[in-house]
């Protein structure tokens, strides 16, 4: 039965062996892997680089199927883009544990020269391929993926020299998959975190980063933060000591700054004192305008927000976001636009009114959600989060997963802050709910319409249509793509 307790060393080994049957990988050994990590210079130690920085570090997204191409891509982002931290985004077949399909895609890519996969199939490249990648660039690299069962991916990439791993059992299940069982996903991630903890115990600190933006579209901050804290708690139980909590820009300056402050404070409060909590801010993850000039505006607002809120890391977007995977030049351009604003603003002492009030509101809401989760699990956070999703007391809007009710619907208030229009069974205290409802009613009155699903759809499209709030009559309504 699922419990939030540390896996035994024996269980770790047993799983370690079993998962290698999923795909024939070259044999590799934990001791040898620790020695390999020990041989890496300080500048490739992800947690150290992140924790020692005195300004927000920039990290893009990037993954192509072939090793040489991936090295060239990352070098470009380091050189021309000035990225401080590098990513390796994994392809979708690997995320589905379809290693055979990934292999075909990789071989097609090698033969045709085309990128027939949407990321780097790290399991297929194996430990040796990963190490060539680590050695091919200067900065540390994080594995970024979206894999519900990331056990083999973690085993291969940790042995391959990666020291940071994005995701978690909730944040890589709820927004990424339909039928995966949440309890089983948590068990799978207990292995990932336990393995990270095993390296950590040997002095190889593996940084773990819950994926904060979840479905990337108008996610109310309290939901994102509560889930991040839960994933942090689960990881810490398994021995992880470096946690980066994430949050995706919603576009309202006050709410974004308040949310980043709440994220850091609640992370430090709920996680034990010997854990180093850092924060990451994702530039807007929703639909982008189909125009590079306007996309630069969206990116720049994210950068300005980061400059004021001062997270430890910023994940950048590119002006080509609308069209899918960007060229390396556009990716580097997104980094430089962000850097220019950060460096022009971060030395300014900018204090925006109303942040404390919004932060307290977010913190109260997160506590309301976390209290319910812990109560449902009888203080066991693993059991609690499963029960909470089953009952809808925790929920994520627009979630594809059958594990979530998806009854929650968000909309923007008259100031552009993301509020909750439909709560479903979300465990928020009544007085907190009434704040959401009152704010949305106020907007509805201002626009002379009723709060409805149309308001949600209008807000989903608003930024790609050139505004923050999907005001009645401001565009043709609807939400084709995102």
């Amino acid at each position, binding site marked *: 039965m699922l419990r939030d307790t540390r896996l035994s060393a024996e269980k770790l080994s047993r799983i370690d062996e079993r998962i290698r049957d999923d795909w024939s990988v070259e044999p590799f050994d934990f001791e040898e892997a620790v020695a390999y990590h020990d041989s890496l210079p300080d500048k490739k130690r992800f947690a150290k680089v992140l924790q020692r920085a005195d300004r927000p570090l920039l990290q893009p997204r990037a993954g192509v199927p072939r090793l040489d191409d991936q090295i060239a891509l990352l070098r470009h982002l380091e050189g021309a883009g000035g990225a401080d931290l590098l990513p390796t985004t994994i392809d979708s077949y690997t995320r589905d544990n379809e290693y055979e399909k990934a292999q075909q895609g990789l071989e097609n890519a090698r033969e045709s020269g085309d990128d027939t996969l*949407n990321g780097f199939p790290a399991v297929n490249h194996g430990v040796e391929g990963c190490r060539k990648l680590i050695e091919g660039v200067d900065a540390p690299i994080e594995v970024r993926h979206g894999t519900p069962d990331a056990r083999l991916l973690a085993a291969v990439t940790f042995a391959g020299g990666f020291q940071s791993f994005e995701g978690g059992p909730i944040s890589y299940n709820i927004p990424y998959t339909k039928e995966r069982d949440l309890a089983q996903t948590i068990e799978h991630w207990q292995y990932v975190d336990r393995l990270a903890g095993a390296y950590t115990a040997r002095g190889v600190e593996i940084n773990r980063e819950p994926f904060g933006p979840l479905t990337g*579209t108008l996610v109310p901050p309290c939901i994102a933060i509560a889930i991040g804290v839960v994933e942090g708690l689960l990881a810490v139980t398994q021995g992880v000591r470096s946690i980066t909590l994430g949050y995706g820009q919603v576009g309202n300056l006050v709410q974004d700054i308040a949310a980043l402050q709440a994220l850091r404070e609640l992370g430090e409060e709920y996680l034990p004192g010997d854990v180093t909590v850092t924060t990451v801010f994702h530039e807007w993850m929703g639909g982008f305008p189909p125009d590079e000039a306007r996309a630069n505006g969206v990116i720049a607002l994210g950068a300005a927000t980061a400059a004021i809120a001062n997270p430890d890391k910023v994940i950048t977007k590119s002006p080509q976001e*609308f069209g899918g*995977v960007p060229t390396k030049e556009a990716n580097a351009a997104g980094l430089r636009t962000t850097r220019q604003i950060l460096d022009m603003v971060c030395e300014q002492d900018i204090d925006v009114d109303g942040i404390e009030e919004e932060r307290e509101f977010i913190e109260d809401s997160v506590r309301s959600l976390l209290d319910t989760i812990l109560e449902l699990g009888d203080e066991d956070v693993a059991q609690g989060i499963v029960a909470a999703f089953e009952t809808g007391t925790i929920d994520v809007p627009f979630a*594809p*997963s059958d594990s979530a009710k998806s009854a929650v619907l968000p909309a923007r208030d008259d100031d552009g802050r993301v509020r909750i229009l439909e709560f479903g069974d979300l465990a928020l205290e009544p007085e907190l709910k009434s704040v959401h409802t009152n704010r949305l009613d106020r907007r509805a009155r201002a626009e002379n319409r009723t709060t409805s699903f149309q308001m949600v*759809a209008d807000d989903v499209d608003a930024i790609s249509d050139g505004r923050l709030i999907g005001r009645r009559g401001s565009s043709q309504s609807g*939400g*084709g*793509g995102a």
Partner: protein
Amino acid sequence: MSATIILGVIGSDAHAVGITILDQALSTAGFDVVNIGVQSSQQDFISAVEAHEGDAVLVSSLYGHAEQDCRGFHEAIESAGLDPITYIGGNLAVGQDDFEQTKACFRAMGFDRVFDSETKPMEAIAALKADMNITESEAERTRLTS
């Protein structure tokens, strides 16, 4: 009007926002919508057409693998003895593609219409009505443009 629309996201893709909004818009416009959700296989779509006597299939894909995921789809539909209208929309190719080329590619695969990710639900609704010869009443027209 009681046309039945099968709606889903094909392949390993899990982007749910678009079909959530499309579902709502199609339902409001008077269609019977069967939303089979994200990560649906070709067979999931075909089974839904059979089970619900679907008149049209709307395939969504936003993660760049649509071409691979849809290979053989129309042959399978035909083998099952079905002939629904088929649309596809979203980000259909990895990287910065030329949409005209992408469109031609999916048209050649058998899709009746191909949309980019900027398409609004109203465009899909108008296309469905045109392709199904559904005449809008004045009342509907008013509602749709309001």
